[in-house]
């Protein structure tokens, strides 16, 4: 399966899952909105160019926005995490050279702790920015803090469940062969 085909399928599945399953869950609490879709951006390959990554994040966010009827609301946080992703990846795995040996970020390619940190930081950044934009239109400061914390927690949990359920086979590539 060619990478282009694989990521296109993934793009569609993440959008559909977010729109038709997660957005249709009756709210458990006013602070909790389950978000998983941005995992698509976190799972993009290491070798993707930064411009393409930013552009793809924008298109991805905007696609979701047209389903939820809020153009720009999800696109802005997606562009932010797409832009910041290479910086954090460099910080986390600069010594090991994993970005040469594995295709994309995962537990196997990065190790448990760096991958958890990677996911947690971007989940937090995404929700912080998303709820900040929402908060500028309505709500109180407590609402803002509570929603960022609760939504980050739920998303983090869901991302780990997803990672354990859908184990992505990662080939170890060397340049010795």
């Amino acid at each position, binding site marked *: 399966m060619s990478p282009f085909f694989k990521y296109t399928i993934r793009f569609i599945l993440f959008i559909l899952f977010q729109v038709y399953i997660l957005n249709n869950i*009756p709210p458990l609490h006013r602070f909790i909105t389950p978000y998983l879709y941005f995992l698509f951006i976190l799972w993009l390959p290491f070798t993707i160019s930064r411009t393409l990554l930013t552009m793809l994040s924008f298109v991805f966010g*905007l696609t979701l926005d047209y389903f939820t*009827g*809020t*153009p*720009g609301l999800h696109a802005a946080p997606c562009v932010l995490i797409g*832009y910041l992703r290479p910086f954090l990846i460099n910080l986390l795995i600069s010594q090991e050279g994993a970005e040469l040996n594995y295709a994309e970020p995962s537990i196997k390619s990065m190790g448990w702790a760096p991958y958890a940190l990677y996911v947690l930081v971007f989940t937090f950044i995404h929700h912080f920015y998303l709820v900040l*934009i929402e908060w500028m239109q309505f709500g109180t400061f407590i609402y803002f803090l509570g929603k960022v914390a609760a939504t980050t927690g739920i998303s983090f949990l869901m991302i780990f469940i997803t990672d354990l359920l859908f184990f992505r086979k990662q080939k170890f590539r060397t340049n010795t062969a």
Partner: protein
Amino acid sequence: MKNIFLFIRRYFNFLFFLVLQIVSLSFLVTYNKTQEAVYSNFANEITGRVNTQYNKVQYYFQLKETNRQLSDENARLRNMLAANFEGPDTSIAKGIDTLTRDTTGRIRKFIWLPAKVVGNSYSSAMNYLTLHRGGLQGVKKNMAVVGPEGVVGTVIDVSDNYSRVMSLLHTNSRVSSMLLKGKIAGSVEWDGTDPRFLTLRNIPRSIEIKKGDSVVTSTYSANFPSNIMVGTIYDFKPDGSTNSYLIRLRAATNFYSIQYVNLVENIQWEEQRKLEATPVKNQ
């Protein structure tokens, strides 16, 4: 000049990021003002088509509830038929009724169009519905949307075959409403927290209200016909230092399981708006 190009090249990624940020934020700010003409028609058609496919499956799981809502509505409407009301004739003198009767449709005010809901959200702070009926089938912007149980929202986007409705569960939605008892007008909005409850403001504290009182659309509401159910009073308290109540309503419409709605067009609104737009000449 060369330095400028070098600068752009060096910071291309950052500048690209800034541009995309500005684009997405401006989308958000100007939504419903400018970009709808270019993108929204196309995007609406695409998402509407996907929504329809999904709704074909999901619809079956709500058939029971949809049936109940529609038959309840039918029963309510049948109860209002003139044939149900008859009392002893107490009139003494007989006069000729000179009222203009609407036999030619001359003084019709509202037109009702049925529509199927194909997309619906209730979990965010800004919720929208997608209806499978659009501009080619007579939907216009600002038409009111009424479900079998009560008010649902207002049309904000129209494409050829689909239309997008700003749900009552949207932090920007306002519906001019009144207490059924006493006809005191206020405004209903949503605070973005619980989809079952709405907020009613501007009811003066001098009015006596009770839990369970009905709130309906007011006679001042331009796009909604009057006396459409909005909700019932759940609880209330004084609104800060103002002279009015802060009333929580239990929404009449069950937003979780809405499948059919009616679009309502006020065909006299144009004239009313024109008059209201002319500057007031104070004498």
